[in-house]
């Protein structure tokens, strides 16, 4: 149960980013392409050089080795590039229930990843990331390759886990209606900073 806090974070064109994401809270982030949404997430995951302060609870980014930080503050990219050969190899135990909740078939556990569609791969990436028990989530357009039904199914699954495990979550989203469905707060990238937006209900 820890708050994810950004203080005076700067990367690329973005400057002086201050943001507190409370446990179990979903903060949506939007912005035109190239505005730096993904780079901001990469900085929080400590994948790129940046200045400023990021902390999870009392732990500063630099207090723990990079790999420990990233297994706690888990970034799921818009498209994953690294896969094992079969679906099952990504998990240390059977996750049939998870796969079912994500709308994948029950026997998907033994499927070769090469057979999956891009939408199925995206769901596998989410399941893999969550199976590593992170303490905070950074989601970069987690439903970009999904149809409407799968999108809502994945949203429900994510909301359940985020609320239940009290994960502070930064969620990069494009669609207004998705933001309305999942966001507790919504920020839009304007010039070199972020600006809070009204939530439409």
């Amino acid at each position: 149960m820890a708050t994810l806090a950004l203080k005076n974070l700067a990367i690329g064109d973005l400057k002086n980013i201050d943001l507190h994401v409370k446990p179990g809270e979903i903060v949506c982030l939007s912005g035109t392409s190239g505005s730096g949404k993904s780079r901001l997430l990469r900085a929080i995951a400590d994948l790129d050089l940046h200045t400023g302060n990021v902390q999870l609870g009392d732990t500063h980014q630099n207090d723990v080795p990079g790999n420990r930080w990233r297994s706690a503050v888990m970034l799921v990219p818009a498209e994953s590039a690294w896969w094992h050969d079969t679906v099952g190899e990504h998990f240390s135990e059977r996750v049939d229930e998870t796969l079912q909740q994500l709308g994948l078939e029950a026997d998907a556990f033994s499927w070769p990843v090469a057979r999956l569609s891009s939408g199925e791969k995206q769901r596998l990436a989410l399941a893999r990331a969550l199976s590593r028990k992170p303490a905070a989530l950074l989601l970069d357009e987690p439903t970009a390759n999904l149809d409407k039904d799968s999108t809502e199914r994945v949203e429900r699954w994510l909301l359940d886990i985020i609320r239940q495990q009290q994960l502070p979550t930064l969620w990069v989203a494009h669609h207004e209606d998705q933001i309305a469905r999942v966001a507790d707060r919504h920020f839009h990238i304007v010039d070199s900073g972020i600006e809070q937006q009204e939530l439409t209900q």
Partner: protein
Amino acid sequence: MNVIELAWWQLALAALLVIALAACTFLARLGVGKSLLIAATRTAIQLTLVGLVLEALFSVGSLHWVALMGIGMLLLAGREVVARQKYTLRGGWSFGIGTLSMFISAFAVTVLTLVAVISPSPWYTPQYAIPLLGMLLGNTMTGVALSLDRLTESAQRSRAVIENRLMLGETAQQALSEFRRDAMRAGLTPIINAMAAAGIVSLPGMMTGQILAGTAPALAVKYQILIMFTIAAGTGFGTFVAVAVCARRLFDGRERLRLDRLRGSS
């Protein structure tokens, strides 16, 4: 056994063959005639000079001259490792890694072989030390250069894969592991092939040279086996060090992939 003396005019006959080849490529507009002639001229000049240097070195035979020559050869080899890389590490790191690896793969192995195996008296006798070092430098250089080239190129090309693994909480070395393995394999494959094919597909150059120069084949073979083993060991250890140091340098203290430390050759 006597070696048949080679006169300069006999070499000139061999040179005529190269000139004839150059003339043919020129007529066929293959566009390699000029570089062929330049390379042939360089060979003649460079080897003649080295011959003079070696003659002088053999007659002096003192440790510091042998050491100076050895270090000069080592630095040149370090530079050669970097010369044809597609990507190099900024800040002279590639040259440093190249020279360090060549020191281990060739310099250390040569000294070890001289002291522990061949044991001439004194151990640095230039007639043994310099050719041995030269063989090791020349042959292990390929492996070290290939492995470095493979590692930096896969880091550049497979950035998304490596960073995806980092995002899942893996350490830098875990995220790079498959590319490290690839790089080691790329470095060691030539010498493994050479050892497997030696005597069947090809007669190794050193052995052939010794036999031409009058050494009994059985003894030449022993020297060739010795050389093959030292090249294999040198290439292995040199490649190992090169890949380990380069892999470390591709990440920073926060285990971020730092491709900004690579410079593409133009």
